[in-house]
């Protein structure tokens, strides 16, 4: 490929830089519809071929993944063995857990599935990006999915749709640093803002008044206050820790998501959009 496209590599470079910078300027504040359409075309082109590669490279993936995550697999194995032992010996606590799960499920049905249409979608991949924490699902515009639709599992909130093409969508997970949702606590009065932390599977709850009475394990729900982008009552996570640092102006609250964000297979896209003012 020794001949040049424009015969002037530097001119090509400058042109491409100008185009890139122009695109950044145009899409920085608000993404125009034609850019979203272009994104959709690229996604629709790549997605069908992706499935074939996934089938071919699955064994390679398993080998490499196993090699690089050997210590994780070992600790997971140990953890599973402990869980099996605990399950065998703890029939009472098991039944308690089932009761608790039934309660949560019942609560879920009362809160966010009532009156809101859903589309069940399969997770086709976790986005291979170090810039955002997201997944891709196999439902898009053709199934009525829209940008802004909340995404849940039977356990709780997963995230929201941020990009849609005809046959697939990108869902920003609640652990992404750009995720934010207004939340309220199950037992305590007050609200806060749950924000993803990026690395790891936890969220921070900001703007919680110091001294708010919170307990470990307490469930946190979306608040659904005016201007919120999620309907009220979707379980978000359980409180892992809550304390007020000396002289702190707000409570330091950490959440663990209820939905298994690291191991999602199927999700429900809620056909709900925030009301326009």
């Amino acid at each position, binding site marked *: 490929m020794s001949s040049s496209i424009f015969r002037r590599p530097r001119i090509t470079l400058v042109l491409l830089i100008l185009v890139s910078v122009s695109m950044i300027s145009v899409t920085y504040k608000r993404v125009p519809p034609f850019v979203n359409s272009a994104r959709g075309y690229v996604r629709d082109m790549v997605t069908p071929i992706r499935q074939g590669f996934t089938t071919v490279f699955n064994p390679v993936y398993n080998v490499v*993944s196993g090699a690089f995550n050997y210590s994780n697999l070992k600790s997971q194995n140990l953890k599973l063995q402990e869980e099996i032992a605990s399950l065998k010996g703890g029939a009472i606590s098991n039944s308690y857990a089932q009761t608790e799960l039934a309660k949560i499920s019942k609560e879920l049905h009362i809160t966010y599935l009532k009156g809101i249409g859903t589309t069940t979608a399969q997770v086709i991949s976790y986005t291979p990006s170090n810039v955002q924490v997201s997944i891709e699902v196999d439902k898009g515009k053709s199934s009525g999915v829209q940008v802004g639709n909340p995404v849940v599992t039977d356990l709780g909130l997963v995230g929201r749709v941020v990009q849609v093409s005809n046959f697939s969508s990108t869902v*920003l997970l609640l652990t992404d640093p750009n995720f934010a949702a207004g939340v309220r606590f199950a037992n305590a009065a007050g609200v806060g803002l749950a924000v993803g932390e990026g690395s790891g599977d936890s969220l921070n709850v900001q703007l919680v008044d110091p001294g708010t009475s919170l307990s470990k394990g307490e469930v946190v729900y979306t608040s659904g206050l005016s201007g919120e982008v999620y309907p009220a009552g979707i379980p978000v996570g359980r409180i892992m820790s809550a304390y007020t640092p000396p002289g702190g102006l707000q409570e330091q609250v950490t959440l663990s998501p209820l939905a298994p964000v690291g191991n999602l297979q199927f999700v429900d896209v809620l056909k709900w959009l925030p009301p326009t003012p």
Partner: protein
Amino acid sequence: MSRLRYLKLPLILLAISALERSQLGTLTIQGIHPDILLAASISFGLLEGREVGAVVGFVLGIVADSFAQTPFGVSSLVYLAVGYGAGLIEVTSMPESRFADLVVALIGGAVGVAFLDGVLRILGIVTVLSNNLVVVVTVTSLTSGIFTLVIAPILRFLMNVGEGERPPSRRGAGI
């Protein structure tokens, strides 16, 4: 570049994009994804010169931006710069060897991801990158090196299938 090679290039880029979206692309090392598109941009820069490296980097950046929430054009800007840089370093100062390719890929991977973080910071965008940049730079650099060593010979073969010519010498390419 012959007409056949012009036709092959989009197909190869489409295949690379699909490969990156496949399960192979979702591999993580210490929670960090290898950047296959960045490695491919470097490989094209090394094999075909700075101009093709830049064009390929730009196109693959568009693909990356199509799946991300970052402003459209950020990845294009970074990948085209890295693709151009790989071609520029290769034709001007590095001896032609696999070791040289590895060194360029390691540097390119590290510079690429650091540049991406820099651009996003300038734009005031908080991403997962910002939290653990050192780890991301290290893993991306190493994986770019490994991927380039694998991708480059495959690309060299694919770009010359049916051409009836030997792989082009990198010396002087694109100057």
